[in-house]
């Protein structure tokens, strides 16, 4: 599928990454920005970044696929991150993940077909004392149970 971007949004983005391109530590910053602004770093955007940073598409695509928080697809409207780090795992986080996938009709680490949901597997969200944890649209929920997560997802 071809992605469409607003011209103003693209122009503004290019301005920022032209700044980053002057910084020897700037490439990841530009990719971060793309993920934030566009909800993903598809190949069209990779090309724009490559132009400014003087880097090949294969290098940029290599980076995007390497890190968990960069996606080459545009993510869904709602992002649900289920922590399956060690502490959450020993408190049955896998069952919660299964439930979330079932409700959202979404595989782990992917986006549902209707682009409503993205389900992301987290590897420790830094709140292990309150495990298991789930982040729904940037809000963290602690001591989550299957019932609680079902309830939470009904609300969006």
């Amino acid at each position: 599928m071809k992605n469409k971007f607003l011209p103003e949004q693209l122009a503004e983005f290019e301005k920022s990454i032209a700044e980053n391109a002057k910084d020897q530590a700037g490439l990841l910053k530009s990719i971060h920005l793309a993920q934030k602004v566009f909800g993903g770093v598809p190949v069209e955007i990779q090309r724009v970044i490559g132009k400014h940073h003087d880097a090949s598409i294969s290098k940029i695509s290599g980076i995007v696929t390497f890190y968990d928080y960069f996606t080459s697809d545009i993510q869904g409207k709602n992002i649900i991150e289920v922590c399956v780090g060690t502490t959450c795992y020993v408190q049955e986080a896998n069952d919660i993940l299964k439930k979330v996938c079932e409700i959202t009709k979404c595989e782990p680490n992917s986006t549902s077909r209707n682009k409503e949901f993205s389900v992301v597997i987290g590897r420790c969200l830094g709140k292990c004392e309150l495990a298991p944890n789930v982040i729904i649209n940037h809000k963290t929920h602690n001591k989550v149970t299957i019932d609680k997560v079902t309830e939470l997802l009904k609300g969006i």
Partner: protein
Amino acid sequence: MDIKLLKKIKDDTLKRVGNKFDKDYRTNKEKEVRIVLKNSYVIDKDSIDEYIARDGYFALNKAITEMKPEEVTEVVKDSGLKGRSGGGFPTGLKWGFIPKEKGQKYIICNADEGESAATIDGVLMRQDPHSVLEGMALAGYAIGASKGYIYLRYEYPVCLEVLNKAIEDAKEKGLLGKKILGTDFDFEVEVFRGAGAYVCGEESAIINSIEGNRGNSKSKPPFPAVKGLFSKPTLINNVETLSVVPQIILNGADWYKSTGIPGSEGSKVFTLTGHLNSPKTVEVPLGITIRELIELGGGMRDNRKFKAFVTGSPNVTMLGSEDIDLPVAFPEFKERQVMVGSGGVVILDDKTCMVDFTHFNVDLLNIESCGRCTPCRVGTKRAAQLLEKIKEGSASLKDLDKLIELAEHLRTASLCGLGQAVGMTMHTAMNSFKDEFLAHINEHECAAGKCFK
């Protein structure tokens, strides 16, 4: 900014806040100490004045106005401070490895906190950001670096805000930036955000990441101390390690050594998680026993039996119930190939299947393997498959031997700590839970009821 003004800010702030600093959040005042967490939960994280009122930046002033750089390193060496990221490498020794010649050098504060269950660095950066910045500046002065990066894990957006504000405030007061405290010492700090990759806590992978590459580990030598970030000498220390340096410089090596036990000087912050009644973050002297840690976490949940003490997830190492009185200390742990770890502790009860638990972590390491070297890329996959076979009931004793041998290969042949640690994982699993593995293989018995489904 000079020492007079620093003192004035301290006095004025102390007057303003009244008895606010008397607050003591510890639940067990006998067992818990307050060194690393001296300011956490007490001061306003956004107030540089309150940090100064707690003697903040006095160590930096002392170092750059009264001490030679080598003297700073010397004090850190004498204090016995060891790296808090888990390996326990002597900090002063590491600082001493950086070449003395002038030129561009870097400090990297490792704030990747990839170890799941560990939330210490996050607490420190959120609660006491200036202690991290001051520690970095002191390290910068000691090795002659003028720029520091904080490599911050993606999952910590709040830390990003707090740190950036702290950096701005410190610059405004002349405590970071050019001509710090009116001397010729310059030091800038920048926060660099990671993007979610466990291996990016490894030193050479961080360097790759900041340089704008995939976060693969590199083969060593050359070591970062000689050829690190942008090919310049680079010192990499953990957040907790750096944040305690100001107090060591201010109060002296002997003061620091008075906590802990010989070989494991000082205190350590642990996040106690898992099957406990009240999982929490505590700071304790090194040398405390596992039993005492469990007690600090409120004891075992639902009165269940303690089964395993786990550190380092997902590079897990484990101890069983027979080791409950073992002191948590570097030499004692090393002898058993167990890591003290960066502070994430998972306490498991007898409902946990250790085969399943080991499989989960090895499988995770396989996912997180950067793929750079074959032993780890292929070996973690094969190890996970063998563990899976044991879980399914199709493994023989030969498979177990294969697994142990494979783990040993991983330990010796992998390029970085991620693959190497699988050897430690299997070694410690066999030390403490061999019977459970055998019961799975021979009797198809899983006491926890997790396997053979």
